[in-house]
């Protein structure tokens, strides 16, 4: 790498999905490896400071430096937190060593972090997010650029994915609205049992258009730019494969957004073995179905922007 100024920013992919245990970290680690193998310069970032384990999935020993140092303002240069992995072209910013006493980053600090991630000297930055719908997780998902939602074909996972998308959607919309009255309306709509009878984002849009057509237009524009994409992990049947399309269709109906289906990964013993071996499945078992599906998703990412 030369020290010359790069004009293009890195593509930041944020991997979320609400529920723990659906394979976010597995997908993040392996997509990072797959993209690096396709000749991309990749930085994998563990944004899950409370449950950091991306380093483990990538076969890296607990690094001395981590994102926690940036968040707690002990280090302002993200570049100094990078550690190498065994895979050429892939570096890591771990999420380890967060102190309980560290202050939670506020919204502005999170926005600064995401901006700094985009300026890393890389083609792709893969951000692995924590579970849940804490505002920090939502901010990383929203500010990142491209949000990927990982879910599994089971009700608990689908439910949490929708909860996550709802929370992200409303947060994004509220931040985009200018008028105080309209912002308040968005906040009200977040409560599903609100008194105005706003049951979905589409209903909310109607209400906003009544109050202020200009804000309505802004709402629609923001809505269009919110384009999370879906990955279904752990598929066992052809029916499971189709779930991604159905979820995309339901999102279009409910939110009025495009949520494209990026791909799926099968339920695979090779995947489980790789997790036990603390290595990406692309390293331990490159010929497995899981590895092939993950590489397929990486190629699709490379060929498209959301």
């Amino acid at each position, binding site marked *: 790498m030369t020290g010359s100024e790069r004009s293009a920013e890195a593509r930041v992919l944020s991997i979320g999905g609400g529920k723990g245990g659906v394979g976010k970290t597995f997908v993040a680690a392996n997509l990072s490896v797959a993209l690096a193998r396709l000749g991309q310069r990749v930085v994998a970032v563990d944004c899950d400071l409370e449950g950091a384990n991306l380093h483990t999935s990538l076969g890296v020993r607990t690094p001395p430096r981590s994102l926690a140092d940036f968040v707690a303002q002990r280090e302002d240069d993200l570049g100094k937190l990078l550690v190498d992995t065994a895979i050429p072209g892939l570096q890591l910013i771990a999420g380890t060593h967060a102190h309980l006493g560290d202050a939670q980053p506020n919204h502005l600090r999170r926005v600064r972090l995401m901006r700094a991630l985009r300026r890393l000297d890389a083609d792709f930055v893969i951000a692995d997010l924590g579970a849940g719908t804490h505002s920090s997780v939502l901010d990383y998902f929203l500010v990142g650029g491209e949000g990927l939602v990982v879910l599994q*074909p*089971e*009700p608990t996972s*689908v*439910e949490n994915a*929708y*909860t996550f998308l709802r929370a992200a959607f409303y947060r994004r919309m509220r931040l985009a609205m200018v008028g105080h009255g309209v912002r308040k309306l968005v906040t009200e709509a977040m409560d599903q049992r609100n008194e105005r009878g706003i049951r979905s984002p*589409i209903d909310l*849009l*109607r209400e906003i258009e009544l109050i202020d057509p200009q804000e309505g237009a802004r709402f*629609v524009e923001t*809505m269009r730019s919110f384009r999370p994409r879906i990955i279904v992990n752990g*598929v066992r*049947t*052809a*029916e499971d*494969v*189709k*779930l991604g*399309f*159905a*979820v*995309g*269709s*339901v999102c*279009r*109906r*409910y939110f*009025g957004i495009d949520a*494209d*289906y990026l*791909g*799926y990964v*099968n339920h695979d013993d090779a995947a489980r073995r790789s997790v036990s071996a603390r290595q990406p499945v692309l390293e331990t078992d490159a010929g497995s*179905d899981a590895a*092939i599906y993950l*590489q*397929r998703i990486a*190629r*699709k990412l490379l*060929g*498209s922007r959301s």
Partner: protein
Amino acid sequence: MKALSTQNHYEVLELAPGARSEDIERAYRLAASTWAEGSLALYSLFDDSDAAVMRERVREAYQVLSNERARRAYDRAHFDAPPEQPRVEIGRLHNVEPLPEDYDDIEISLESALERNLDGSAEGLEADYDGARLRRSRMHRGIELQHVAETTKVALHYLQAIEDESFDSLPAAVYVRGFVTAYARTIGLDGKRVADSYMPRFEEARKEKGRGRLRRR
């Protein structure tokens, strides 16, 4: 995004006006399973009364669009110039990207839209059809093995053995060739090409086994 009540039949099925009849079939099947009672994709977001409204709209839309005469009348009433049946892609939904030249499986696939949406160029680059690739192709087209068994009348355990390459559980080569051909056709692949690719693996394994037996003797 228009409210459901103001959407036309094409919008309800997420199709462009002028969609081909196979696209209408595909869109209908997907919508019917998406909004079916107990559908996983609806869980926690839509309750069944909402879904029932959608089901009714989907059914209505399909009834009209799948019937050539009804569709023509509908088009005349709803569009100024009736669409000329251009080969409209379902791309608005699925960001259809042009396919690489070497990807020849897709065009004959039953679920071609699904293919086009999900695939990079992975499978076209693989040379051989082994059991794992057959399984991947089948899953990709959204077809359960049970359905292949019903269509081909080949016993499920044989089909399973073909995918798992449990060659010992399979009968003589001439039958297996027939099974593989039928399997491939059912999931929309070129039966002969797949069998030509798969059978040498089977025959090689059989020969290996024969040699082993001779040595033991």
